[in-house]
């Protein structure tokens, strides 16, 4: 479908969609606006939509002049990247196997995946803490990466499986007939076709790890490993109504998310079908 065609079809939809999205995203705007206010501005009635004049005082106090918060941004990045790589490594072959390979016990594995999805983090965190302490992993990045991955892998497999189901079997069969090995067919034919799925799941894994809170709270007390979600929670625990500063930290957390998403958006927009038909 060409751009020209779509442009003809839907300016009305664009207007409706824009209005809806603006309303829907008001909370994000409000976060940004609040983060640029002074404390007296926060407590002003009626509230000002746009701070006048905007000030970065809250960013200075809560982020820039705050080495703990700054360092927690680095920690979150390390945890996010580590978790993404490990998740993809484990989840991609598993999702493919479950979608396609008609393995004995696949139902059992699906059940296990679902079962592990059922576990509230709060329940898992205690025993994990004990295991990790025995391995001397508590208070380290690996502990948080391993725990986050444990929570995300089942989700990743479940989300990826339909993507593999969507890959036309004919292409795969053709490759196999051509003499490619199973791994070869998987790597050369299936993975590229499921590219959208991989990128989507990789991005989601990063962002879930970036936002993870319960494990970070329970498996770590080391401020050098502490991710920014925990840093924010600590601030809330101390001053639950310093909204400008809380929203400044919140906005800081949101920025990498916007960046990751801006970079990867086209893959998601393309969708599954376009990837499969292009080959």
């Amino acid at each position, binding site marked *: 479908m060409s751009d020209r065609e779509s442009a003809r079809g839907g300016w009305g939809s664009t207007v409706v969609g824009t209005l809806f999205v603006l309303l829907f995203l008001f909370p994000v705007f409000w976060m940004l606006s609040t983060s640029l206010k002074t*404390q007296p501005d926060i407590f002003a009635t009626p509230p000002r939509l746009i701070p006048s004049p905007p000030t970065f005082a809250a960013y200075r*106090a809560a982020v820039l002049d*705050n080495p*703990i918060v700054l*360092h927690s941004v680095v920690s979150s990045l390390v945890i996010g990247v580590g978790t993404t790589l490990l998740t993809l490594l484990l989840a991609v072959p598993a999702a493919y196997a479950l979608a396609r390979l008609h393995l004995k016990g696949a139902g059992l594995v699906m059940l296990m995946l679902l079962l592990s999805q059922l576990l509230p983090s709060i329940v898992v965190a*205690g025993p994990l*803490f004990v295991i990790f302490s*025995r391995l001397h992993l508590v208070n380290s990045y690996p502990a948080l990466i391993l725990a986050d991955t444990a929570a995300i892998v089942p989700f990743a497999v479940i989300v990826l499986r339909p993507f593999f189901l969507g890959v036309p079997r004919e292409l795969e069969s053709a490759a196999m007939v051509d003499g490619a090995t199973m791994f070869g067919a998987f790597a050369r034919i299936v993975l590229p076709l499921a590219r959208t799925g991989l990128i989507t799941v990789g991005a989601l894994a990063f962002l879930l790890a970036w936002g993870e809170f319960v494990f970070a709270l329970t498996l770590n007390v080391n401020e*050098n490993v502490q991710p920014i979600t925990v840093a924010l929670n600590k601030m809330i625990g101390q001053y639950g*109504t310093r909204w400008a500063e809380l929203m400044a930290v919140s906005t800081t957390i949101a920025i990498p998310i916007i960046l990751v998403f801006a970079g990867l958006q086209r893959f998601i927009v393309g969708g599954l079908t376009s990837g499969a038909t292009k080959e």
Partner: protein
Amino acid sequence: MTTTPTTATSRRTLLKAGAAGTAAALLGTGRRAAAQDKTVLTWWDYMGDPATSANAAAAVNQIKRYMEANPQVEIQRTYVPFADLKTKLLQGAAAGQLPDMVIIDNPDHQAFAALGVLEDLTEKVAAWGQAGNYFEGPWNSTLWQGKNYGIPDNSNCLVLWRNLGLSGPAGVEAPADWEELKAAAAKLTSGDQMGLAVSAVKSEEGTFQWLPFLWETGADIPTIDSDGGKAAMQLWVDLVNNGNMSKGILGWTQGDVLAQFQNGKAAMMVNGPWQIPVLKEQSPDLKWEVSTLPKDKQGASILGGENYAVIKGKNLDAAWDFLVWAQEPEHLKTYLLEAGKLPSRKDLAQDPAWTDDPVLKVFVEQLLVAKPRAYGPKYPEISSAIQEAIQASISGQAPVADALAKAQATITPLLPQ
């Protein structure tokens, strides 16, 4: 390449180490080797982040001074939020991941001593011979079954603060009793400016703020479901329902109460001395005054404060060396004044720094009628029942009488026999 030692003060250096530090930390196992052969003393407290909290800054400065005097020791401080500290300590105990020493809220001290995670300091204390220099309330909070499990760090208590800028010519005198308090709160309420702010948040902070009012009626926790208990709860409920106090108090920490006061949204507040340095630094133009809490049948306040405790089987000698140093009056005085806290030592309480200061002397006076929370090792659960009663009454979920009856039923079996 090693990671920089991670005290609060050297974190900037760590940041500069950038990727190198990150890589090292990635490989690290949380067991950080100090650069030299230093004794490493790990330390947890809930004082906050030194960038935003005067209490934390005071603690960090104190640690820095100690390390300057004792270069062979490296103290690694970690901030654990107030509400999480108990959980963290229990988890750490289960997994053998505890710090060497910890600063805890004094009503929880017996609960931790009863768990068996704290070092028995009785012999060290006897040899030290300074127990008699401490006030009885804070000192007793470190005792469990006759043994000594810690040293008081500081004391504090709650008083009433008034914003004089708002009171102005039509302002109010310091209210002496509850009737005057209600009248003053009503008078000072206008628009979005509330007469009074307290913290009723569902944590120990809420209990801490309400107990003085309970005690002022002559009632006590074992008799919480009494006329006195009902009157104390009704006082807060009425203040909220009359619009003189925001229902927001249900979510406010004492730090949040301060923010209301600083921004002129609460003309009066109930708060402690640790807010003095914060107010002076952040709101130097604000004019305010403190007075003892308005009385009912009697005057009362609450004895707050933190104690040091040493974790069993860890680094007793190094920890004890720090404690003895920190408790020397001249070291203690610098730290307490910086943190806005009151001495638990009798000899320091006579110091003109407290007795001659127009603000601090009110606290010292209030401290005389400040009661400790000495209700045994089940106190955390008792407090939780009180928090629930406060929340239920103020949110309107249950009438005051029902809420207190329920609290009483929970509390009675938890009290020491």
